[in-house]
């Protein structure tokens, strides 16, 4: 869009049918003549051709826009750089000055100054340019400050780099791209400023600009003459150029700072029902059957969880372990229907007390949420609303599912819950940012228990906490389980915690379950090579000098899943079949399975004998 305007401006003399600067003596018929063959856009108050004026006018508008923006850029950039780089008193002073100028209304100042110093093109450019430095200065300063504190700059300093060197090689490359995007926006602002000044009557009367055309038309009766052709084209010209620069600026900014733009409250896709029947055993609380989860990604949907089957009995604790990115969190989020936007359950059943959660819509799920199952999310930092008190947020959950409870009762229960997790009930009136990390985690646990659910999913509840707090929290969970008889799914990569606190373990890798069984079975007699290597990677207190094994290679990328067994590329025992065929989960006993071809013989033995 911008390109068109620039081209028009440059080639104006060839494009315009008439020369608006040539002296002419119009007759009364010429004034405000409507569009005709002779004058495509009619004539203005002086009998001049509007189209030619429009074309020539582009020159002034663009010249002012670009020149003024350049001046603003240079001044603003310089001040911002100095303020950000030097910091300290100089920086603060410069920022106070900038803030002061931000408060003063731009246009008022522009008007006053132009009125006093005179209306020439040069003055207008200078005034708009010089007064436009404030937004650029702010931006540049903020960016410079950030860059200045970055590790690579500190390192350069430590090595003895001079200020100028650091500026040139480190700061500028980071700051310039943002300045560029900002400049484009400054151009649009400058063009708007010029047209406004001209419209008010402070433009250079010897030059034609779009604002000036509007000024003449408006003040000389175009409205009452109904001469819309004298009014609309110049205005549209301004809109065209400003839109062009704004779009360009936004595109540049998006390029530099891409934002995802999806959120949790988007409309969910309708649930898919996979045919099937719930399992018969009454003691099974949650039974995930062949669950598939996909994520929308630019090119093609990615399968994050590919046929996972897990079950949890009442009162049981299952440890879901695996490397980062293996799909353990995604599996449980999907099971509780809490996937982020872009994620979807693509197949399988989620049997919870006889109902398939995968087939239910949001309205049907809502009454079940928190009452039947709840979750303690990973990283409780921002999981609590920072502008509401902790106690209020717990009470909210209670009142949501037990409407007969009064506000006071709910508050009392919330306080009691906080006591249970080891936070004094008197802290219910505090805000999340007033809690320490461990306390926030415990508050999240209290919140998860608020409605007495049968199942709690705890996602890495102890990562990022120190060992003492870790032990406290795990003890707390165990005690609560014993007291309330609730089931627990513990998602973690810490095998030690699982061994201590859980009844059963399921090991995941690359979006599939590779092994499942009781703690004794999985830890004492691991069947899958991955499980074995994982266990070998953990330090053994009885053999402190044993070197820790590590598993070479990295987990597969979700968009490059290898055919056959997912672990085959890293498996020390892999043979040909492993690379072409995917091993099924061979059952090795009651609720015991492993997905590896090595196990096939054992399975056949069990099946036969």
């Amino acid at each position: 869009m911008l390109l068109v305007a620039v081209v028009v401006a440059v080639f104006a003399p060839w494009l315009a049918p008439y020369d608006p600067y040539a002296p002419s003596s119009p007759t009364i018929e010429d004034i405000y003549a409507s569009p005709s063959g002779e004058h495509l856009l009619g004539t203005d108050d002086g009998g001049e051709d509007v189209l030619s004026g429009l074309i020539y006018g582009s020159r002034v508008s663009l010249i002012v826009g670009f020149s003024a923006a350049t001046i603003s850029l240079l001044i603003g950039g310089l001040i911002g750089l100095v303020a950000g780089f030097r910091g300290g008193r100089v920086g603060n002073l410069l920022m106070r000055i900038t803030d002061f100028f931000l408060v003063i209304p731009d246009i008022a100042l522009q008007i006053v100054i132009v009125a006093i110093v005179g209306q020439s093109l040069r003055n207008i450019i200078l005034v708009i340019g010089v007064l436009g430095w404030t937004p650029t200065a702010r931006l540049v300063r903020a960016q410079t400050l950030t860059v200045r504190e970055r590790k690579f700059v500190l390192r350069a300093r430590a090595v003895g780099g001079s200020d100028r060197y650091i500026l040139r090689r480190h700061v500028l490359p980071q700051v310039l791209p943002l300045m560029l995007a900002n400049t484009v926006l400054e151009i649009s602002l400058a063009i708007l400023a010029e047209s406004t000044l001209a419209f008010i009557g402070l433009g250079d009367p010897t030059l034609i600009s779009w604002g000036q055309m509007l000024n003449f038309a408006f003040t000389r009766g175009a409205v009452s003459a109904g001469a819309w052709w004298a009014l609309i084209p110049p205005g549209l010209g301004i809109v065209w150029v400003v839109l062009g620069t704004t779009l360009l600026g936004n595109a540049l900014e998006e390029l530099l700072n891409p934002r995802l733009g999806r959120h949790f409250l988007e409309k969910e896709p309708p649930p898919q029902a996979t045919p099937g029947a719930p399992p018969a055993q009454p003691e099974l609380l949650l039974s995930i059957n062949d669950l598939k989860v996909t994520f929308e990604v630019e090119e093609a949907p990615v399968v994050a969880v590919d046929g996972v089957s897990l079950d949890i009995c009442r009162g049981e604790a299952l440890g879901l372990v695996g490397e980062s990115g293996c799909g353990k969190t995604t599996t449980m989020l999907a099971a509780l229907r809490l996937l982020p936007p872009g994620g979807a359950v693509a197949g399988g059943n989620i049997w919870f007390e006889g109902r398939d959660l995968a087939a239910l819509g949001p309205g049907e799920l809502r009454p079940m949420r928190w009452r039947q199952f709840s979750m303690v999310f990973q990283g409780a930092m921002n999981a609590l609303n920072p502008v509401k008190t902790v106690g209020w947020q717990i009470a909210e959950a209670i009142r949501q599912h037990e409407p007969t409870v009064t506000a006071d009762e709910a508050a009392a229960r919330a306080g009691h819950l906080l006591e249970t997790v080891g936070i004094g009930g008197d802290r219910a009136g505090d805000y999340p940012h007033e809690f320490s990390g461990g306390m926030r985690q415990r508050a999240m646990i209290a919140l998860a228990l608020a409605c007495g659910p049968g199942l709690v999913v705890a996602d890495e509840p102890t990562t990022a906490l120190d060992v003492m707090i870790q032990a406290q929290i795990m003890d707390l969970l165990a005690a609560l389980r014993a007291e309330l008889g609730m089931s627990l799914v513990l998602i973690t990569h810490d095998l030690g915690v699982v061994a201590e606190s859980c009844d059963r373990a399921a090991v995941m890798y690359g979006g599939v379950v590779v092994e499942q069984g009781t703690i004794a079975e999985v830890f004492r007699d691991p069947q899958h090579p991955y499980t074995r290597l994982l266990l070998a990677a953990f330090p053994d207190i009885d053999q402190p000098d044993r070197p820790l094994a590590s598993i070479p290679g990295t987990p597969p990328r979700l968009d490059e899943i290898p055919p056959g067994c997912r672990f085959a590329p890293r498996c020390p025992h892999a043979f040909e079949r492993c690379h072409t065929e995917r091993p099924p989960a061979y059952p090795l006993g009651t609720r015991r399975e492993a997905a590896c071809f090595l196990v096939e013989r054992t399975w056949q033995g069990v099946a036969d004998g």
Partner: protein
Amino acid sequence: MRGRGLRAPPPISLMTRGSLFLRKIIWALITIFVVITFNFFLFRVLPGDPAKAGVKDPRLSPQAVAALQQRFGLDKPVLFNTQGGNLFDSQYFRYLGALAQGDLGTSYAYKSRPVTSMLGRALVNTLWLVLPAQILAIVLGVLLGLVAAWRRGTKLDVSALIFALFTWALPTFFLGILLLFVGSRYLGLPTGGRITIGADYASFWATAGDVLSHLLLPTLTFALVLLGEYMLIMRSSVVEVFSEDYILTAKAKGLTTFQIIRRHAFRNAMLPIVTLIALNLGFTVSGAIQVETVFSWPGLGKLTVDAVAQRDYPLLQGAFLMLAVSVVVANLAAELVYLRLDPRVTEV
């Protein structure tokens, strides 16, 4: 303080909050003082010496010029009087003294009228225009932005975005001209001014009705221009808030979408709007100037433009001062509101 119940208002501690309020107010007062000083020197430092312009009539004899200069105090030194006598007998301090008494001088163009009363009346007219427009723009902008963010990516969202982009690119005065053109030609609305010229109504309501019909188009123009920007900011703020973890927690708790928006998201999403309103006050002035010019609405903006056209420097100086001070005051108000809303703020 604790145990006050779960709906306790925010403060970190009452003492720090109170002192924050105070510091902001003091800072605003300092800014106003700097604005006054800046304003004073602006008119004396620039080439063209507007201070003396009123007495530079070439037809006057030198004695008359000198007498006039003495009368306006233009023969005194500008900042400090070092020629013996009172150190503060200078133009600057005389100006400050006069200002303290509410005297902003007399207009050059309207020789008998004091600037202060002209400004006062104009300010009231501008407020009649600006306040309803801002309120309308805020209410509509916030609602539209919320809906657009909620239904992100749908046709509704896209059309709202296009609309906002377009109103942003449209110069205010151009929109005013368009609306004036359409309104006066096809809808019979008045073409300008505050009241029909020469009309003298018997009842208050008749007068009010006439003024309102004059007020309609300018207010609409102003509101439309602001609407686009507020909508855009609200939308991006809401999308950001909707992506926060605590929204997922709320959803997991089983709250309906409406409950989540009302209790958890709305207040957090509104915070940037408050900041935006503060930042936008300069633009409000610009918009007021443009809209009042197009519709001949007798407010502060039009007064400024008229003063410029007639090079009426005392009036211009006073108008500039009033505009700048209004912005500082409004800015302060917005900052104080923000302080009240966000419990996490600790710095000035």
